[in-house]
Each structure stands twice: as C-alpha cells, then as structure tokens.
C-alpha cells in the first residue's frame, strides 16, 4: 500500500470544499488527476468509492453538528425526504450512464460539457445576484426539475451533479448550511450505486487499479469530519457568498479544461 502525499493534500482540499460548499470533489479533482498522468480506470471508480464513504461520513457529521437533521425511522422528516428525492434522481442517472456506456451510445463530449459548464456558470451568476435576497420561497417543483437536470448531466457522463443540485436547493429556498448537508449525504448514496455498478462491470473483465484509493480515502475522510464542523462554526452569510463563487469557479474550470488545457 502506497500513500502519496500530494494526492492526500489534493483530496483533503477538494473534499473540504465538497463537504462545505456541496460541490467540486469529482468536477475539480478528476481533471487534476488526469493532468498528473493517471488513467480513467485509476481515477473514476476510486473517486466514486471514496465519495461513497466520505459522503455518508460527511452526512453523518452534518447531522451530528446539527447543520441538518436526518431520520432513518418513520416518520421520515422533511429534510430526509428532500435528500432521498435528490439521491433518487442521481441513482437513476448513474444507471442510465452505465446503460448508455454499455450500448456505446456517444454524445459529442465537448458540446455536452460546454452546456454543463455554461449551466453552472449561469447558476453561479444568478446565485451571486440573489445574495441580497434574504428569504426565498420554497419551490419544490424547481428543486425536482433541477435535480432531474443534474441527474441527466451525470447520466450522460458530463458531471456537474453537485453544483447543479446545490444551486437548485438554494434557488428553492433551502438554507445554505442544510443544503450542503443534504447534497453530501445524497452524493454518498448515489456513489454507492456507482460503486456497485463498477464492481458489476469489473466481473465482466474491467480491471480497476486501486493505487490511489488509500491516499484519496485518507485526505477525503479527514475532510469529511472537519468540514461539517467548519460549516457549523462559520456563519451562514459566509456560505451564501462562498457557494455561488465556487460554482462560478467550477464552471470556469470545466471550460478551461475543455478549451485551453
């Protein structure tokens, strides 16, 4: 087993942002690891495995530090219902993406990724404009629609699930700290389905390289404990600014990777 220091640091930084701003682990870390020379089969399944554990851990500690309250026993509380709806769209999306990959149905990758980047940029921009708006009205249909769009994006392999769902929750009036907790736990559940699918595929001859797993798990797991605490301590007005700003950065990162790097 090998622990690679710079991978641990990168995983820690991106998971810190993912568990506190609800986005960026997959969207940010994947292109960086590709730039470091790692292959897709060394990166994608490992990020899914790591995100499955860190997402659940982060959700657990968000609950513990009271950024959100989730319930397992009936009656399931309303925050949990919203989380299950978001996770449900994500799980369907993962299955669709595997189905599309199985039948080798290809979309024009550049067009799809440009669309996702522009969508995230627009949402980040609207989020910045709405900063002054204190009380948004709860819009469940908007949340359901944006969860479906995020799921579709993930399903066609374009990424950007976290930013779209996160901004969708904020536009739907959910408190920023709670939205972060909901998206962390939902992504953990979605990634469990993703891992199960990859393991199923690996039975049909796909070989997964686990070299990065201990390093990414180490950085990610520590961040998944620290970030919910950070979310609790820092005032919500900070997250109101950080989340749309980070979404804008994610959009710029995707466009940079597509057209400059």
């Amino acid at each position, binding site marked *: 087993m090998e622990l690679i220091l710079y991978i641990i640091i990168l995983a820690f930084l991106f998971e810190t942002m993912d568990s506190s701003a609800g986005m960026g682990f997959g969207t940010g870390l994947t292109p960086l690891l590709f730039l470091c020379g790692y292959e897709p089969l060394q990166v994608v399944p490992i990020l899914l495995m790591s995100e499955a554990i860190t997402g659940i851990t982060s959700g657990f*500690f968000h609950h513990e530090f009271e950024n959100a309250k989730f319930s397992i026993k009936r009656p399931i509380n309303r925050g949990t219902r919203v989380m*299950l709806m978001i996770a449900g769209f994500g799980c369907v999306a993962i299955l669709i993406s595997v189905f599309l990959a199985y039948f080798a149905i290809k979309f024009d990758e550049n067009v799809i990724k440009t669309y996702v980047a522009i969508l995230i940029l627009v949402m980040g921009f609207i989020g910045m404009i709405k900063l002054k708006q204190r009380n948004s009205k709860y819009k469940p249909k908007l949340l359901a629609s944006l969860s479906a769009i995020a799921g579709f994006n993930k399903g066609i392999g374009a990424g950007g699930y976290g930013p779209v769902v996160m901004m969708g929750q904020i536009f739907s009036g959910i408190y920023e700290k709670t939205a972060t907790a909901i998206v962390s736990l939902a992504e953990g559940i979605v990634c469990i389905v993703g891992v199960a699918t990859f393991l199923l595929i690996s039975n049909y001859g796909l070989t997964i390289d686990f070299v990065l*797993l201990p390093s990414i798990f*180490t950085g990610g797991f520590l961040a998944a404990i620290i970030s919910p*605490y950070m979310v609790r301590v820092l*005032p919500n007005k900070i997250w109101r600014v950080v989340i749309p700003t980070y979404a804008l950065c994610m959009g710029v990162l995707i466009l940079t990777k597509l057209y400059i790097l």
Partner: protein
Amino acid sequence: MEIDNVSNVSIDEIGSIARVIDTELTIFERMKIKKRSLKKVSGAIVFYLATMILFSIYL
C-alpha cells in the same frame, strides 16, 4: 421519488435547527463540541484506522 410529499414541505422545517443555532449562538458557542460528538469523532478515527489496515492487507 416522493415529489408530492416533498412539495408539502415547509421551508422553515428544513434547516430550522441550523437557523436557530446561527441566530442564537455566538461563533464561540458554536465552536464547543459536545462529549457525545467527540465520541463519534473518535469512532470515525477508529473506522479510518481499521479501513487502512484492511487496505494494507488487501491492496
């Protein structure tokens, strides 16, 4: 996906505890960690160490 059930959700109920903590506690009060939470953090560290031992055996 229970969109109908979700649409009955009151926005005040989702995140109500986080809102109260934000408005009623100072940053220093929010920094205090309960003993129960510390036990759970310790449990997570034990889980991490156990997982790393498993990795060192199987990877």
